[in-house]
């Protein structure tokens, strides 16, 4: 991953500024030295546009998806209350961009709830109808896992050419926070998720051992790192998560990048959680899954 210093950041910032000026109101970021940008953060009321821009800043969807690729997407979609699930606007934009880039197939690694797409305009029906669904889970060993040595997980996660994680960042009563890393539990069946919560011999409750849960989340992320993360930080619950209801925070931001750990560490700050204060992020960093110190990375806000 490209590292940056103050000078390169200023240069990139100048390039972004110039690119934006040259393109007028089009807001295209094509032509930027996108390799130098690790995390893009786009703020605005239009969540479709935010998502497009966030991916364009990273070099565009073509940097991730090639013609004929199969793409696996993972949204946080079981919940129904405001601020508890990935905005369908964000998710459908990613799906549409994948198809436009020539993706052969886009697979939902977890089937969304049946009314998940209902509030989208009808024009998206053709895109939604092209989506396919993941295979039934199989057991996958995790040799480097500390608390989790194997997990049942959909084999589609490993088979797809490109894996795009599309979580919502929000409060979580157990782990205080959830985004990319915890979202991977969505690709596992309930039987495996139970093991995350109940260490062998533990007769306590679901969150009796947060450290074990956090380690399991870090471990399961060893199976496959996302190729692209697109985090919905538009509207989310500040407390009362994961299911809500709860007071809503509205940063109206979409955050994208390749490093799930760095992005989680960054978006956790929207909830007032300091870098290094979320166990699963620390443990994932210790596994070498990504960089916890997002200040070492090149973050471009637009």
């Amino acid at each position, binding site marked *: 991953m490209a590292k940056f210093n103050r000078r390169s950041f200023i240069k990139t910032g100048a390039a972004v500024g110039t690119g934006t000026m040259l393109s007028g109101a089009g807001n295209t970021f094509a032509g930027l030295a996108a390799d130098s940008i690790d995390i893009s953060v786009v703020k605005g009321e239009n969540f479709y546009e935010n998502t497009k821009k966030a991916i364009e800043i990273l070099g565009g969807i073509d940097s991730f998806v090639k013609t004929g690729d199969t793409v696996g997407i993972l949204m946080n979609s*079981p919940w*129904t*209350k*405001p601020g508890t699930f990935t905005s369908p606007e964000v998710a459908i934009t990613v799906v549409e961009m994948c198809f436009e880039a020539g993706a052969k197939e886009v697979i939902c690694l977890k089937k969304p709830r049946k009314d998940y797409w209902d509030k989208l305009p009808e024009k998206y029906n053709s895109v939604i109808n092209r989506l396919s669904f993941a295979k039934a889970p199989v057991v996958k060993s995790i040799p480097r896992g500390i608390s989790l040595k194997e997990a049942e997980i959909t084999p589609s996660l490993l088979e797809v050419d490109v894996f795009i994680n599309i979580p919502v960042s929000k409060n*979580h*009563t*157990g782990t*205080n926070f959830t985004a990319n890393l915890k979202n991977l539990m969505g690709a596992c069946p309930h039987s495996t998720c139970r093991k995350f*919560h109940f260490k062998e011999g533990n007769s306590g*409750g*679901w*969150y*009796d051992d*947060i450290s074990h849960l956090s380690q399991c989340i870090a471990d399961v992320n060893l199976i496959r790192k996302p190729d692209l993360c697109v985090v919905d930080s538009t509207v989310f619950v500040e*407390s*009362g*998560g*994961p*299911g*809500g*209801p*709860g*007071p*809503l925070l509205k940063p109206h931001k979409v955050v994208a990048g390749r490093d799930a750990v760095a992005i989680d560490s960054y978006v956790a700050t929207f909830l007032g959680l*300091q870098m*290094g*204060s979320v166990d699963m992020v620390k443990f994932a960093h210790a596994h070498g899954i990504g960089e916890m110190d997002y200040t070492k990375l090149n973050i471009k806000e637009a």
Partner: protein
Amino acid sequence: VILKNSLTLKKLILLFYILVFPFLLVSQPKNLWPFDSLKGGWFSDTVLNEYSANNLYELVNGGADLYFEYGFIKVINGSFFNNGKEILVELFQMADNDAAYGIYSFYRSPKAIILDIGDEAALMDYYLSLRLGSYFITLTAYESDSISVTGLQSIAARIAEKGNRSGNVPDIMKFFSEFPKEEQKSLKYLKGKLGAMNQYHTTVSNMYNFSDGAVIFSDANKIFIFRHDSSGDCDSVFNSIIEETKLKEKVQSTENNSILYIDRNGKHVQVEKTDSYHILGVGDNNKILNKKIELLKSGLLINMQL
């Protein structure tokens, strides 16, 4: 004699039903559900779903544990409709009044508008939380327009009419009586580690070993009080906290019944023991933190004398 005894028995059975039947009625959450049409055109004709401790996970997933910590019996849910708008109502039957107060206070936002519905209701943008005896009820609209917000209040009021108020709050909440009224809206009643950990994440393992407790958010400080079954229990827990803290944290000072340290996030943390309570304060400034703890201790003293 047999006839006379039989009549007495019938009278006793009748008296039993007159006295107990109303309570049996409201002890079933379904009996609180307003099936009749409500003010503003809201109505509910859905089949109600019921979840017990065995399948609460299906409804609230990982959120279930918090309900178990406070004391959960069952929940029913269903929706109200009005011209394409929907309000989801979840009616949780908790173990007792304190359990309902606890979960209500946990979810109540300090920014909420407090309403005189049931024992207390808190309105926040698109949702309303209601405490009614041993019930905790959440009403969630999917929008925050005036029709939805008015609907939240009229449905809540109708539910409250069908139930019984308890009028009680756990006695430990009274210890915060010296804090400003506005700050008391942030009070949360605690029954276990999960609720406490959500307010402040500590690495000291016995910090949240308690019988019941409470926390208030005062300026940038969090002030907790934890009750133990006896002074001896408190001594034992407090001593283990001191020992572990000395090993794990950057301790600034220790006295007989108090320890001050800086946690991993640079916060000032003060732990004190008084009688069968231990107090935890977390903040950015020692002096202010200490003042807040003294405020709690004065409330404790006043209420213990009463």
